[in-house]
């Protein structure tokens, strides 16, 4: 079975390491009426895109795999890294076959990137998806419904074919299955982190940002089966919850470094959009209303969502307790206002709860991990020795 684990990871890596999106190009090549829709972090309602007969493609930047030349001419040094690698990829023509891009309301940088897209790539439909910060169904819900209708209308305009409620329900059901499988994977990881190292789980999950939902569901199942059939040996590591990496993603080397330094990641907000909706979305009734209701009542906590009467520090503590984490690592991208402005509030609460934590910043192309290894190692040792 060992080779089956490796085979599943290789399938994920083929997608993740291909900055030309060969998988998407192949999918597009199978029909003249096919379209690709890119979306930026955190969350996009992929159900609508899939129901419209299109492939949703998560665009998380180029990580450490691309030298940035043109992108740096578009962004000042004090702006995070993800937009410069995304624009570099776009200027290189890597998204030339995409028909549309969704820019979720998450921060001012991604928001303004939507405008740059309008100016640079006028042939692509640009949707700035303004998520409501008001959670009253009659107020924020009504507004969000209109946002989703606008998205769907424009996808229909691009594809030239109507989308039925049945198609929306069917797509929703496939993504419900995806959410269940991801929950299963994360539960398994939390129970036995040595057998589901983050450096593997992350690749399997992230592959779902490019694969069709059905292919991703198969990949998760195959990986789970292989890992459960032949477990890896146990490790002496502390259990860590990782916070702050929901948008710009850390390089894989950083995740491996944390594990090598004695930190088993048992909870995290990496690739948060894949797990943004907690639980199933209704597959009967009005399908857009179901997506609206899911956003209003089932979205997880996030730095991009106003916390109002539902403070995210409470949610963090709940999650930390639920996954029996020994401590928290704040792992935030440099210049990320949402993550970094949350950090003091979250840390204060962890102090009150006597949950130990450590903090550092990264960018997606960080290449030197020695300092992080030492910091994480010290954190791990301090918990093992003193807690």
């Amino acid at each position: 079975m060992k080779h089956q684990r490796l085979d599943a990871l290789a399938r994920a890596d083929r997608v993740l390491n291909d900055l030309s999106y060969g998988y998407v190009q192949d999918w597009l090549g199978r029909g003249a009426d096919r379209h690709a829709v890119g979306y930026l972090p955190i969350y996009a309602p992929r159900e609508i895109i899939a129901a419209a007969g299109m492939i949703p493609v998560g665009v998380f930047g180029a990580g450490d795999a691309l030298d940035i030349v043109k992108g740096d001419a578009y962004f000042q040094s004090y702006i995070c890294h993800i937009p410069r690698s995304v624009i570099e990829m776009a200027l290189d023509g890597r998204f030339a076959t995409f028909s549309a891009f969704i820019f979720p309301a998450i921060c001012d940088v991604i928001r303004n990137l939507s405008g740059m897209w309008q100016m640079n790539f006028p042939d692509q439909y640009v949707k700035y998806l303004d998520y409501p910060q008001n959670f009253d169904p009659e107020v924020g819900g009504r507004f969000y419904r209109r946002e989703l209708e606008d998205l769907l209308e424009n996808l229909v305009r691009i594809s030239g074919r109507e989308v039925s409620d049945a198609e929306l329900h069917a797509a929703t059901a496939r993504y419900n299955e995806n959410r269940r499988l991801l929950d299963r994977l994360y539960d398994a990881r939390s129970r036995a982190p040595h057998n589901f190292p983050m450096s593997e789980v992350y690749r399997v999950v992230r592959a779902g940002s490019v694969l069709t939902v059905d292919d991703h569901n198969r990949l998760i199942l195959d990986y789970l089966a292989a890992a459960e059939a032949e477990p890896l040996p146990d490790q002496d590591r502390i259990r860590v919850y990782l916070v702050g990496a929901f948008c710009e993603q850390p390089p894989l080397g950083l995740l491996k470094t944390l594990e090598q330094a004695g930190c088993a990641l048992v909870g995290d907000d990496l690739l948060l959009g894949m797990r943004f909706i907690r639980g199933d979305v209704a597959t009967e009734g009005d399908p857009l209303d179901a997506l609206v209701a899911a956003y209003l009542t089932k979205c997880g906590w996030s730095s991009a969502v106003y916390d109002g009467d539902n403070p995210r520090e409470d949610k963090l503590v709940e999650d930390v307790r639920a996954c029996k984490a020994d401590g928290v690592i704040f792992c935030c991208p440099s210049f990320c206002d949402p993550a970094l402005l949350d950090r003091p509030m979250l840390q204060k609460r962890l102090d009150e709860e006597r949950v130990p934590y450590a903090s550092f910043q990264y960018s997606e192309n960080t290449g030197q991990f020695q300092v992080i290894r030492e910091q994480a190692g010290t954190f791990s040792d301090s918990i093992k020795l003193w807690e």
Partner: protein
Amino acid sequence: MSETPRIVKEKSMVVQKKMLAAYYKGLASTGETGQKVVYTFVPGNLTELILSFGAQPVYPEINALQSGMRKKSMEFIRQAEKMGHSEDVCTYVKCDVGMMLKGNVGPTGETIPAPDLLLCSYTGCFTFMKWFENLAKMYDCPVVMLHVPYRSAGEASPAMVQYVVDQLRTRVIPALEKVTGRPYDEERLRTMLGLAAQAEDDMVYCFESAKNRPSPIDGYFAGVYYIGPIFTAFRGTEECVTYYRSLREDIDERIARGLGPITPEGQIEKEQYRLVVEGPPNWTNFREFWKLFYDRGAVVVASTYTNVGGSYDLGFRHDPAHPLETMARYCMSCYTNLSLPQRTAVLSNYVRDYHADGLLVNSIKSCNSFSAGQLQMLRRVEEETGVPVGFIESDLVDPRYFSYANLKNRLDSFFQMLDQKLTPGESDA
């Protein structure tokens, strides 16, 4: 730079200083008067609505910039960084948090009262939300969120207007009623919105006076110094109308006499360059920064920063006939709530309409709302208008990011570019 000359002021500058002093004094005495205090933001501010409830608005970013001008911001920022805030984030937030931790003593030395309500007008800046989430943990008071949609597709759609109106009806007004103990008085609000519209006409007249040659005002430094600030805190009052009428008369007089803008060191005698500026100014070294311009006869004839509190020169006016709808439309009209193509068009139009010689971007390290995309805008304006463009960097209120030598070098190079572009005599035609 060592000798500090006597500061020259116009009549309106003296009046606005008195008005602001009275405003801060009024704030400091709310403990005795029982007047309620509402913290909110300049972009998307609901000043008329707050005042109609008899409450007093407080603008944390104005406190922060005033602290910056009075050299107090560094201490506050360090205080916030000690409690865990990153060097990377918005320095307005850190200055405000630090000020609160240090006793909330405001820029005039008087204590700013704690808020009775935090009204988060989430307009054109994502960080506003995080800012008030942080404050909500520090103050024991209710918070109300007003989410103002972003105009990514250009115009404010009916659904966007409806969304804001619904929030005003179901969240903001009930919160103000509860805090102040007063019922919503729409007639009073209409009256105030009517007064706001009058002041808006005169304020736009003042800013557009910069189309004259020479320009009688500096539309950036003076714009943020004595033309714009009164507007935010006093909009909707008779005092505000009187101020702008008086300012308009001052400016008319300057136009009639062919006078250039007034600076802290007197009047600019020869208008050498006419500039459009994008981005907020640096506040920690405001006068030093301005001097880099007026020493070279550079006059800013139009700036986008003066539109963060509303894009009145693009045509918006408060309409008392539709009080909630007009406030919704106002919020969405603020400059940083416009899409990047719209912002670019504003800049290109400014260059043409104000006959500017060049565009300068002051890119602010801790303001992603303004800064992300500015390099793209810069290039596009250059393509569209053909004027030279320049780029400098500083920060709002963190003095660590103000480098005089660096700014001077870059500005000298920019002025050289302008000299090469301008034929002799063109700039003073």
